[in-house]
């Protein structure tokens, strides 16, 4: 394990070396290259915000980072505080377009399932009730997830990131269906995550109000896969 100090994930600034690094990532959909030669490096407390028009490959990039898609070329690695490579799948949360919750089950059942399924071995994370409270929905825990409105469902999906603490958040349009108040709530959650030494990579147009944001813009110029050259 890479967390050797006593309060593992929270004792941050001392090591400060956990980094997520992408080198020369290339992604394509069918024959057209969506992006090429994407390189970035994100450290603790930093957020990378991916922007770009529809179809520019934001989701493709995030799924690639999560390991759900194989990269055409290039690599993405997560290095722990001691410099060793960590498996992204076990240290990253991926929040996609879909909420990963079962409509038939109660909100609390959904969250406690993910808590037990995704919690790291050292068991860090909020309790289910605290996470529901943190997304401002106390009182819905006993309802079936399907009864909630789209915005509430999204907020519960965000609560999943809180019940099992993982250092890297990969967020794909996290604020879809959220009203402006929830937008702020979400920005605060990301803020708190970064302040605790987390890393975030988000595809969003929502200003997060963060000081250490690395912008990455995908231009969405589609090119035939045979044509070489810079795309963005």
């Amino acid at each position, binding site marked *: 394990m890479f967390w050797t100090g006593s309060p593992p994930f929270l004792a941050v600034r001392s090591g400060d070396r956990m980094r997520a690094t992408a080198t020369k990532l290339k992604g394509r959909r069918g024959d057209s290259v969506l992006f090429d030669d994407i390189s970035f490096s994100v450290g603790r407390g930093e957020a990378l915000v991916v922007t770009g028009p529809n179809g520019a490959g934001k989701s493709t990039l995030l*799924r690639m980072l*999560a*390991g*759900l*898609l194989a990269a055409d070329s290039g690599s993405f690695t997560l290095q722990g505080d001691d410099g060793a490579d960590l*498996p992204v*799948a*076990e240290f*990253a949360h*991926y929040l*996609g*377009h*879909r*909420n*990963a*919750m*079962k*409509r*038939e*089950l109660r909100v609390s*059942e959904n969250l*406690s*399932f*993910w808590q*037990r*399924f*995704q919690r790291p071995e050292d068991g860090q994370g909020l309790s289910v009730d605290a996470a529901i409270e943190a997304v401002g929905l106390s009182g819905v825990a006993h309802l079936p997830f399907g009864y909630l409105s789209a915005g509430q469902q999204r907020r519960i999906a965000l609560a999943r990131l809180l019940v099992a603490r993982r250092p890297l958040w990969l967020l794909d349009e996290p604020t879809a269906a959220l009203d402006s108040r929830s937008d702020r709530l979400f920005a605060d959650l990301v803020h708190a995550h970064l302040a605790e030494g987390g890393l975030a990579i988000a595809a969003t147009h929502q200003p997060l109000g963060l000081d250490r944001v690395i912008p990455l813009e995908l231009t969405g110029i589609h090119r035939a896969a045979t044509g070489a050259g810079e795309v963005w």
Partner: protein
Amino acid sequence: MMALLKRDLAIATRSGGAAMLGVLFFLAVVAVIPFGIGPDLNLLSRIGPAILWIGALLASLLGLDRLFQADREDGSLDMLVMQDWFGLVATVFVKCLAHWLATGLPLVLAAPLLGLLMNMSATSTGAVMLTLVAGTPAISFIGAVGAAIAVALPRGGLLVSILILPLAIPILIFGVSASYAAVTDPDPFLPPFMILSAIALFFAALGPVAAAAALKGASD
């Protein structure tokens, strides 16, 4: 992993769950046979074990395509695939187990009732139940492979059945022959039953690994 088993069982037994669907289909298929064949009790008891086995096989195939598709539709599948290799194989194994508990076990429990409809003796019904206990998990485990391959297809149900059926035929053959051997005298019960159990164990080992590989490759 216990959490996953609990979750899948909870989903299967809540409203709209697959648990009742399979067993109702089983009841419907087997219950219409006596009406179609006519009241020839000897014939019914002779074909009874085969009919029960065919009904159970079809009922097991019925909800199989939903095994991973439901998780894919709500996005859970991404989280399940985001694990190391061993974790993913274990996840598939647990999902198959939950699928069997929710759909296979009720078939076994419904068999005695349908045995009555088919005028089967107690021995014969017992033998069918025993072979179903050994055989239906095999269908779930190998079915997971088909379900994983067809996970991205919008209407993969038929494809899953067609992919799985050739592999499920040995299960049917040895299940039925063991059931018959229990009631027809010179035939030994144990050899076909042992082969059936061996097939089940083989599929339990092979199925989750193959399904995990298919899920890893199918992500888009």
